[in-house]
Each structure stands twice: as structure tokens, then as C-alpha cells.
């Protein structure tokens, strides 16, 4: 009887797991002893970090996309048929078409999504760049922006935790280039009492913003946006005026997680080192979908996926556990249009970002292309 590995979700985490696993268990797949099936929601794979460059016209939209079928190893059985129910008790997943997929091992990698609708007025009054439509609208808004007050507003929880800082510093240089900086005031808002969750990053960002004349408002958790009055108000009682609101909306996980009773907000309770769903021994969770108190970022998904591959391959071929996830995260940080830095940390090593440089910015630009090797499980 062949073993069935089922992966729900065709984003970065699910795709790396699928492709990496194919290589690790190639002999068993050849003999028909193990199959890998992926259930996705779309036929295209998007490089999400590339959305940061869309508002500034720094990337062509087509560079963000590849056909998912071409990104996936040809041995992976791929269905575009959104999952509607995940039944971990009976080891089966039901899809929109009515198809039911049974499994021996399940990988849940359903990701996260922006929820501007969770805050009154945000959809009507805000711009964002966390999806393609939003990034296009922000590009249009910037094209016609002639100066005024910009609020860059960050909400919890959100993925890609350095992106809010990146867009802030890139906005400043973009507006300088257009000769609009002396007519513009940027205010950056953040939910906690410093400018970034990572203390060393916050310590770097504060003097950088002071030097550039970027204002900031900490302890700002958005209560509502008034699109007519063009104001944004916080739970802490602060109201700011804006001409252009660039928001990082709060996120939720996928509806199928909530609909299946697997986790509030779409986040699945997950063991932080085993990456197994709490209470399960054959359900792995990977990427943004976990409730692990760790950055929701592409690199997190990547390093988690590597761990899941090693463990699934070992369990399937040798009946043993391979290794634990150490909490590794690595993020490039664009500090302007021409400089960047990076930060890495894990559960036991605190972050320590270096000085920004043009070289690291180039590495980031190179990675924008190399991503496709990551997704294929080659990098």
C-alpha cells in the first residue's frame, strides 16, 4: 500500500516541501511506494516580496509570477481546487469541487492574507502593497501625489515584518527623486513602544528616521480610518491626518483553517520545534499558517520547509525523526533605493543587523531572481 503525502497550499512553504521531498524520496516515488499531492488555489505562483517594488515601478509585474505547474517538480500531483475542509481525525481533505483526498501525512501550508476589512474605513481610505491590486493602486496614487502628509501605518499581526520600514525609507528616496520631499511629511506608526519588533532594528531605525525627518508614533493600534475626513485613529487615543495612507493591514490565516476548526484566526497551534500540529503526529504545519510566535516571513517558511522535508523523508524511509527546527529567520532589509542590510536570528541567538551597504542591496536584488531556485527547493 503506497503512502500518501498531501500538501495543502501552493505558496512558498508548500512548494519547497513538495519539491524538496521529491528529491529525498525519489527512489520510493519511482517504485510507486510514496505519492505527493498538492492542493492549491491558483495556477500561478507569486513572488510576494517583489510587491514592495511595484509602487515605485522598480519591477515588471510579470517578474513576480511563474506558472505553479512549472515551479513544481513534475512528479508532484497538482490540483487547483481550494480545500474547504481539513479533517485531521479521519485523515482527509475535501475540496471545492467535492473531491476528497485521503492522506497518511499532511502538510498544512495555507499561508496568510491581509484583512483591511477588519478595521472600519481602512478598505476605503487606505492603500497597501501586500497584494498586486493594492500595489498597483498605490503606484497610481504615488504617480499623482504632489506632496502632503503620508502615514505609513503598521498593524498586528502582519507578515514580512521589515517591509513597513523598507517602504518608509524607499518612499522618502522616491519622493526626493521627484523633488517632492520638501513638500512631504511622513509619519510611521507602530503597534508597540518602539519602531520595530526587533529591538536592534528599532535602535537602527530611530536615528535613521530622525536624520531623515520622518516622524513616528509608537503604541498605535488602529481603531478606525475616516476616508472622508482623511484621518486615522488609534485605540490609544491618537488621531492623525493624512493625504495618503499606506497601511500594512492586519492579517488572518486561510478561511479553511477556521472553517475546519483548526485554529482561531486561521493560525494552527503548532509545536515550535517539531512543526507538528498540536495533538497530531502526522500533520505538519509550515510557513505563515503556524501560531508559533515567530516572524511570518518567506525565510521562516523556507527554513521551516527544510525541516519538514528532512523529517518527512526520514520518517517515510527510515522510520525516524531527523531534526528539530531552531527558529531560524533571515531577512534582507532595504534601507533605501540603493542600500540594504540583513538580519538573522533563531530561538537562542538574538538579531544583530550590520551597517547598510550597497552590496547587500545588490544581494537582495539578486535574490529577487534567485527566489525561483528556492521555490524549486534548489537553494
Amino acid at each position, binding site marked *: 500500500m503506497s503512502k500518501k503525502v498531501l500538501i495543502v497550499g501552493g505558496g512558498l512553504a508548500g512548494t519547497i516541501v513538495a519539491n524538496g521531498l521529491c528529491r529525498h524520496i525519489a527512489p520510493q516515488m519511482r517504485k510507486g511506494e510514496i505519492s505527493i499531492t498538492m492542493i492549491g488555489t491558483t495556477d500561478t505562483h507569486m513572488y510576494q516580496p517583489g510587491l514592495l517594488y511595484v509602487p515605485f515601478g522598480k519591477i515588471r509585474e510579470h517578474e513576480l509570477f511563474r506558472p505553479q505547474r512549472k515551479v513544481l517538480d513534475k512528479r508532484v500531483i497538482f490540483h487547483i481546487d481550494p480545500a474547504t475542509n481539513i479533517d485531521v481525525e479521519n485523515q482527509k481533505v475535501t475540496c471545492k469541487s467535492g473531491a476528497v483526498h485521503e492522506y497518511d501525512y499532511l502538510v498544512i501550508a495555507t499561508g496568510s492574507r491581509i484583512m483591511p476589512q477588519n478595521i472600519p474605513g481602512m478598505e476605503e481610505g487606505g492603500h497597501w502593497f501586500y497584494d498586486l491590486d493594492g500595489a498597483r493602486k498605490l503606484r497610481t496614487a504615488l504617480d499623482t501625489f504632489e506632496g502632503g502628509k503620508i502615514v505609513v501605518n503598521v498593524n*498586528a499581526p502582519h507578515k514580512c515584518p521589515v517591509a513597513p520600514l523598507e517602504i518608509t525609507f524607499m518612499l522618502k528616496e522616491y519622493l526626493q527623486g521627484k523633488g517632492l520631499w520638501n513638500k512631504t511629511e511622513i509619519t510611521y506608526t507602530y503597534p508597540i513602544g518602539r519602531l520595530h519588533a526587533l529591538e536592534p532594528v528599532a535602535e537602527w531605525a530611530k536615528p535613521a528616521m530622525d536624520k531623515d525627518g520622518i516622524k513616528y508614533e509608537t503604541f498605535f493600534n488602529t481603531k478606525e480610518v475616516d476616508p472622508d475626513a482623511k484621518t486615522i485613529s488609534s485605540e490609544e487615543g491618537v488621531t492623525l491626518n493624512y493625504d495618503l495612507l499606506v497601511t500594512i493591514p492586519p492579517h488572518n490565516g486561510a478561511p479553511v483553517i477556521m472553517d475546519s476548526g483548526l485554529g482561531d484566526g486561521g493560525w494552527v497551534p503548532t509545536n515550535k520545534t517539531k512543526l507538528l500540529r498540536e495533538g497530531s503526529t502526522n500533520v505538519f504545519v509550515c510557513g505563515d499558517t503556524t501560531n508559533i510566535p*515567530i516572524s511570518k516571513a518567506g525565510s521562516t517558511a523556507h527554513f521551516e520547509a527544510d525541516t519538514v522535508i528532512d523529517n518527512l523523508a526520514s520518517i517515510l524511509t527510515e522510520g525516524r525523526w531527523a531534526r528539530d527546527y531552531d527558529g531560524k529567520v533571515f531577512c534582507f532589509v532595504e534601507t533605501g533605493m540603493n542600500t540594504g542590510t540583513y538580519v538573522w536570528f533563531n530561538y537562542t541567538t538574538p538579531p544583530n543587523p550590520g551597517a547598510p551597504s550597497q552590496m547587500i542591496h545588490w544581494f537582495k536584488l539578486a535574490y529577487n531572481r534567485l527566489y525561483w531556485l528556492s521555490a524549486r527547493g534548489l537553494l
Partner: protein
Amino acid sequence: MSERKVIDARGSFCPGPLMELIAALKLMQVGDEVEILSTDQGTAKDVPEWAAKVGHETVDSGEKDDHWFVVVRKAK
């Protein structure tokens, strides 16, 4: 009787205990309690300060073995 959720943010550098707490409160009902565990001493001060600022109630806080804990009740 409302339920108490526990967030184990020990060793979490990003997004960190307070961000985890803020995210969790959005999914909870008024009256529910959440206990946050943290290895960052600042949590014992930052969380009660923030809770007071937005009108939530700090039910308990302190140090236990190698970490700090704060219990917050969602008040609105």
C-alpha cells in the same frame, strides 16, 4: 467563566510578546483572559503599561523560574 489562553513567547525576538498579545486580543471575546510568557524582562513593564493605555485589565504579573508572565483580561 471565560477561558484563558496562554501565549508562550519565550525566546521570541520577532514579533515579540506584546505584538503576539495584541494579535491574540483581536481574536478574543470581551472578558477572556490571556497569559503571555516571556523571557524579556521588559514584558513585565511594557504589557501592563500598554493594557492600561487602551483600557484592558492586567489581572496578574510576575516572575516565575526563568521567565516573566502577565495575565490580561480583554475589557472592550
